[in-house]
């Protein structure tokens, strides 16, 4: 009897505990987990669907080209040649493969081979450096330039070059656009003086910027045999991408809340204090929105500019693979496409994080 009582008590306690627990863990949380699971599920599903469609599409294209090849062999060279062609294609021999949109698995294989290639080249480089170490020391001691590795760049090196170019271009855009934006934002007359300039140069295409920068840099580097492709490409990228920041900074500075300006006046802040303690902080959110656009534009125009400037980056890589027309060239181009997309996405996330960090009204930001 007594024991039963105790048991009952325990039971009621445990139900109580459960109730409390249920109250403490809000149902929103459960919903939240379910929701994120559902979202991940949907994302995974869509990726699978995408890969499936891609696979089928590339298969269809492959078959179309294969059929055409066999047909052509038949009409031009007769039965025997057609049979040989069919056998050749079926055997997977690289000499007669249709050259079309690669399938996901080919792209994956290509990525792996690019990474393997990187390891080979790295080893090569290390060996070269070791071999040349003694010689180079002597050369440096003698005041001459050391001998550097001039072999093929690996895919990873190429990606790093592109990232370096984009950051250099972005930095240049920031250093030019933010100060000028602030100055023209502060003065309505300068703003109208600069207006035509901005309106005319903003829509100019990356190719033209490249040509303009090329004209100038080529002359500046005259007589200098060193490689200026990197310089030309990052300057072009910077010029192409800086407009969003310039316009946003000018707008942010020009449209500071009247109330804040009144505070600055009543406190009698000096010009310097007014600019740095009131005007700039209040326009930071807009400036960073501009910088975010600038970075994504920089990454987008980079590919075209690297191609033109012959700078060892992703743009040139894509173009050379296309020209090259080797068997796995198409797959490599697709690999580069994904790498470009993913890096662009990551750069945007990075800027968004920075933007949220500096913004004082976080809940108003997307």
């Amino acid at each position: 009897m007594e024991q039963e009582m105790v048991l009952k008590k325990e039971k009621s306690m445990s139900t109580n505990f459960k109730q409390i627990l249920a109250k403490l863990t809000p149902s929103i949380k459960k919903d939240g987990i379910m929701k994120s699971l559902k979202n991940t599920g949907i994302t995974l599903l869509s990726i699978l669907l995408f890969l499936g469609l891609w696979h089928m599409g590339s298969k269809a294209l492959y078959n179309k080209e294969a059929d055409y090849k066999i047909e052509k062999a038949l009409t031009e060279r007769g039965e025997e040649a057609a049979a040989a062609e069919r056998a050749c294609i079926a055997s997977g021999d690289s000499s007669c493969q249709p050259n079309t949109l690669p399938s996901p698995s080919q792209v994956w294989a290509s990525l792996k081979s690019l990474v393997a290639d990187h390891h080979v080249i790295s080893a090569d480089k290390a060996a070269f450096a070791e071999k040349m170490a003694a010689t180079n020391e002597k050369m440096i001691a003698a005041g001459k330039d050391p001998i550097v590795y001039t072999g093929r760049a690996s895919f990873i090196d190429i990606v790093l070059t592109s990232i370096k170019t984009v950051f250099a271009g972005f930095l240049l855009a920031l250093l030019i656009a933010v100060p000028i934006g602030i100055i023209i934002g502060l003065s309505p007359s300068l703003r109208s003086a600069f207006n035509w300039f901005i309106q005319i140069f903003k829509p100019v295409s990356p190719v033209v910027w490249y040509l303009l920068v090329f004209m100038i840099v080529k002359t500046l580097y005259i007589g200098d045999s060193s490689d200026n492709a990197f310089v030309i490409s990052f300057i072009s990228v910077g010029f192409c991408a800086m407009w969003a920041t310039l316009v946003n900074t000018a707008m942010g500075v020009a449209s500071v809340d009247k109330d804040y300006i009144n505070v600055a006046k009543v406190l009698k802040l000096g010009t310097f204090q007014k600019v740095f303690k009131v005007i700039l902080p209040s326009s930071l959110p807009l400036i960073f929105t501009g910088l975010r656009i600038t970075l994504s534009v920089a990454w987008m125009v980079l590919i075209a500019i690297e191609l033109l400037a012959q700078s060892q980056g992703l743009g040139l890589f894509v173009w050379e693979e296309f020209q090259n027309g080797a068997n796995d060239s198409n797959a490599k181009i697709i690999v580069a496409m994904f790498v470009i997309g993913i890096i662009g996405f990551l750069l945007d996330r990075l800027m968004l994080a920075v933007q949220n960090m500096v913004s004082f009204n976080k809940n108003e930001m997307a």
Partner: protein
Amino acid sequence: MAYLELNNIYKTYGEGENSTEVLSNINLTMDEGEFVAIVGFTGSGKTTLVNLINGLLQPTSGEVLFKGVPVTDTSHERGVIFQNYSLLPWLTVGQNIYMAVKEAFPKDSKKVLMERVKEYVAMVSLSPAINKRPKELSGGMRQRVAVARALAMNPEMIIMDEPLGALDALTRGNLQDEILNIWSKDKRTALLITNDVDEGIYMADRIIPLKPGPNATLGPEFKINIERPRDKTAMNDNPEYKKTRNAIIEYLMDIGDERKTVSDVEYKLPELTPKSFVA
């Protein structure tokens, strides 16, 4: 010589066809140490009047004299409590006030200034919120920060534009006493804009109504002959208080009715063109 003098002030916003004369023929004199309250309807031009006195705006015609000198700019001698708080959202409560005291007392050390910030934050009972940003505060708390910021600068004259509008009765009462305290202790001059007649009677020496705009002008003044320090509860039974209060409210109701009849006329809306930016 009067401490503050407004002579035939007219203020027009806009130009040409779109211009409106907000204030017309405003005349006011205040002596040093006086506490004057101005009551008025919303949109009648109270903030405009305040900005003319603190130097943020210049009158279209007429002159504002502060200690005999025309007001052409803002000055630390005239502290302002803005109607819309005007706190800088990227600074914390403490930093907002620190910025002000640093400008007002440039020679003091950082430590002395910090002490002063803390003192005034405590005065408006916001010590626990000193490191919060305005976004995290309620409207009433922001208003208290604005009060602390203005008073911490130790201005000779305090100009207040509906400083206690967003507060509950209790906090409002406390802050009223706090402002009165500072005013009487340090022999300040104070101009209070309010829409609460009782607040005006409790705090001011004189109440002057501002007639509804456009072309708002000051009405007849009402002297408050109640001895200081005033006691809120005892005041309710004071015959002088009742008499003054009734007179003011009657006057305001009269001009309010006038406004209603006037407002039947159709207003021509100004033609607005969007601002063009460098874009």
